[in-house]
């Protein structure tokens, strides 16, 4: 891999260089590019990230090291001219794949990220009425809650998408969380015309979801277009690859021979199974995901 400069432009057009020249007063005759679907998703996500940065302080971005959160870090760099002007946060379950930790350390440096590390409590401290895999997943909720308290966060940027899971489809772009970080799913604020809710009480925070309108295949096509680096686990080895990355003990790989981004895209175009099919907790009972999310899970 090659090192990326913070501003990936050639020297003649860096803002600093251009600023020293008098601007040309002759308007260019160039036409704007017609935006395709990825351009529109990107522009909307940049708008959302800029709103979050302006309105919610302190703010942090949840970097799970998965493909979606890498796309999110990338979009933040797009929004802020090559840098991420707020900390990113990794809430570590200490059960991730070793490849993920290596990736984290490499790209924290390469992307010049301000990384906040948090840890999750042991599973014994989690609600025993949850089914086993969900109980394990709920550790992350507790770890995240501790980070929000510790850093007094008012905004947490998370990479969930509507097409992943049916209760996520009901989410807002700016989703207020009240005391105890609960998601009041029956009483969500109106959100229209790009006007988002902002917190109005102490102890509240806002979950910001810049990828809500993206679909799995959009994420992959954008990764291909932008050349965004990923953990190798997403690519097939010995006929298996991970489609979604959770903890080692509650995520299973799918049968696949897709070993490049292009092959993954081709595979998804014909796939008829859901992305989270390999996540054990989703299949334990009908309402388990909603219960987790109301309590603060992503």
């Amino acid at each position, binding site marked *: *891999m*090659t090192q990326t400069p913070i*501003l*990936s*432009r050639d020297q003649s057009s860096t*803002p*600093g260089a*251009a*600023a020293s020249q*008098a*601007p*040309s*007063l002759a*308007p*260019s005759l*160039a*036409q*704007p*590019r017609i*935006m*395709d679907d*990825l*351009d529109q998703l990107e522009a*909307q996500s940049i*708008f959302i990230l800029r*709103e979050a940065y*302006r309105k919610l302080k302190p703010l942090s971005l949840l970097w799970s090291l998965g493909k979606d959160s890498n796309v999110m870090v990338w979009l933040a*760099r*797009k*929004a*802020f*001219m*090559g840098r991420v*002007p707020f900390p990113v946060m990794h809430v570590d379950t200490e059960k991730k794949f070793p490849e993920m930790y290596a990736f984290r350390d490499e790209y924290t440096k390469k992307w010049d990220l301000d990384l906040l590390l948090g840890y999750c409590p042991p599973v014994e401290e989690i609600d025993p009425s949850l089914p086993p895999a969900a109980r394990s997943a709920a550790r992350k909720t507790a770890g995240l809650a501790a980070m929000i308290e510790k850093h007094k966060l008012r905004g947490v940027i998370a990479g969930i998408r509507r097409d992943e899971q049916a209760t996520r*489809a*009901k989410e*807002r772009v700016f989703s207020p969380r009240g005391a105890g970080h609960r998601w009041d*799913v029956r009483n969500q*604020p*109106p*959100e*229209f*015309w790009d*006007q988002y*809710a*902002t*917190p*109005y009480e102490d102890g509240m925070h806002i979950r910001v979801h810049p990828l809500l309108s993206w679909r799995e295949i959009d994420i992959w096509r954008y990764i*291909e*277009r*932008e*050349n*965004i*680096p*990923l953990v190798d686990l997403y690519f097939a080895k010995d006929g298996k690859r991970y489609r979604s990355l959770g903890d080692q003990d509650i995520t299973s790989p799918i049968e696949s021979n897709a070993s490049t981004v292009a092959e993954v895209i081709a595979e998804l175009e014909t796939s*008829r*199974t*859901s992305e989270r099919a390999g996540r054990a907790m989703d299949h334990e009972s*009908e309402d388990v995901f*909603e219960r987790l999310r109301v309590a603060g899970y992503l």
Partner: protein
Amino acid sequence: MGDNIVTGHYSETHRAAATPIVIVGHVDHGKSSLIGRLLYDTDSLQDGKLAQIVESSRKRGLAVEWSFLLDSLQIERDQGVTVDSTRIPFRLGSREFVIVDAPGHRQFLRNMITGAADAEAAVLVVDAKEGAQEQTRRHAMLLRLIGIRHVIVLLNKSDLLEFDEAKIVKVESDVRQLLGRLEIEVEAVVPASARDGDNIASRSERSLWYKGPTLVEALANVPPPASRAALPFRMPVQDVYRFDGVRYVAGRIERGTVRAGDRLAIGAQGQVATVAEVCRWHAPELPVAGAGESIALRLEPDLVPDRGDLLFPADDKAGAPERSARIRTRLFWLRGEPLRVGESFTLRLTTAEHDVTVASIDAVVDLEDLTLREGDSVPPDGFAEITLAASHAVLFDPFAPGFGDGRGVLVDRYQRIVGGAPLIGPAELADGEHAIHPTASRVSAARQVQTRGHKSGVFWLTGLPGSGKSTVARAAELALSEQAINATVLDGDTLRAGLCSDLGFSPEDRRENIRRAAHVAKILAESGQVVIVALVSPLEADRAQARQIVGENFHEVFVDTPLETCEKRDPKGLYAAARSGKIPEFTGVSAPYEAPVSPELRLAADRPEHDAVNTLTAFILRIVQP
């Protein structure tokens, strides 16, 4: 995987963004079932999804319930009602759509708007047998106010009319007439049965007379969004950054095109700067950007605009935005209490925020027949035309369906979105009308609670003369001060000694007395104060007016002392005077007292006075302590 400086490849074949289609209509007219059917017939369901729905339906003793596909929340499945909007991707040939399922229940109107606001087209589902109902009219009205240009009507359950041509044509003409009144152009009216699949994806054998499109054909015919690139340039400033010594003016282009070298005017002040550079990161180098792009500009000279400042062409007078401090606007009202003249809000318009006051309510929509009526308030979930007065000139472009212009939103002091306000145009002042520009506090309610340590509230004590209102109020004031709570008492005699010394005791003057007290109480409560009003306020209608003036902070307290007790006490000798005819129109003797039917608190007289004080104090504490 590489992470190099070369931008990855951009696809040669252009892929348009998915077209959002919202499904709306009255509750139980079959929206969710329609979506289930549509996805099933177009083979858009993921493996296992159908089995999941069959299982969830079986568990509740139902036949296959299509709505379970979308009603993912436990409450939705158990109660069989859609609470919040859902979106699911869906494809017809090479074209991508997003289907938005919006709740039909009036209670969840804000969720319907959330789902529908960015849709390109709508399918309005109408039960063929029942015809248009209240929510049909309300949703149709909203489609117009949120600016949806393409409407397809689906006459669902047409099998209940045996697909009879004459009957269906009759329903169709009713619905067309209704939508015509709203200036909504109907793309198609499709007689269909979502349950059986008639005229959804395939043409029905039961309606051979019908020559129009099936629903799927009608959806495929929805044109792509209109281009905004040719309109005069607008970019509201979203933020200004300074990174590595370079200042970036960031924003999304709402319409038009901007090029390096363009001269732009900045906000209402109208300073002019030239675009030195159109900046992006990790994107093709282009000195130009068009509508929809989120970009950053470098300006020359290096000015620092504020968030919300509109950037527009400096040299195109004809293409300049409207500029006015009074704006006519349509309104869809989302607060649980009615809207009244004189209320203040923040008007959010893209990234700009303006303090505005409702200067007048010009017309209210009657939902029965969709006509405009005069009115002095807008009911919850109601529609109206109003005039907003701002403290400064506002730059805006009038609202037009299908475009992003003029999409104002009203936000209250708690940062809650309480209404949508599509801006129509500048408002002229009528002859002789005095322009008033009330200002609103910039201190949020949350901040007030923080500095004072308690919330505010208006506690309105009503009761007969001599019932003990002022005594109890003053004692509660003292008790509250011991708990470090600032309370103010507004009592009848104190008000009449000063602010209301021009008023007598006629019904009109009593009403005016109450109106003034309510406004003073409101101002005090808005500054964070606890206010105890002690006024006879004998008429239900006058107290209702006070409640409307004060708003949700109003709490009615009935000091329920019987007439005999009051008369026995007669601390000011007024009853005696009234009985001897020296005081005309004395409440309880020669003027009526209408006791409150359901006060929030009733202070009974059969208890010692200190009990009433304790009860009132505890009641107030419960409400104002955070």
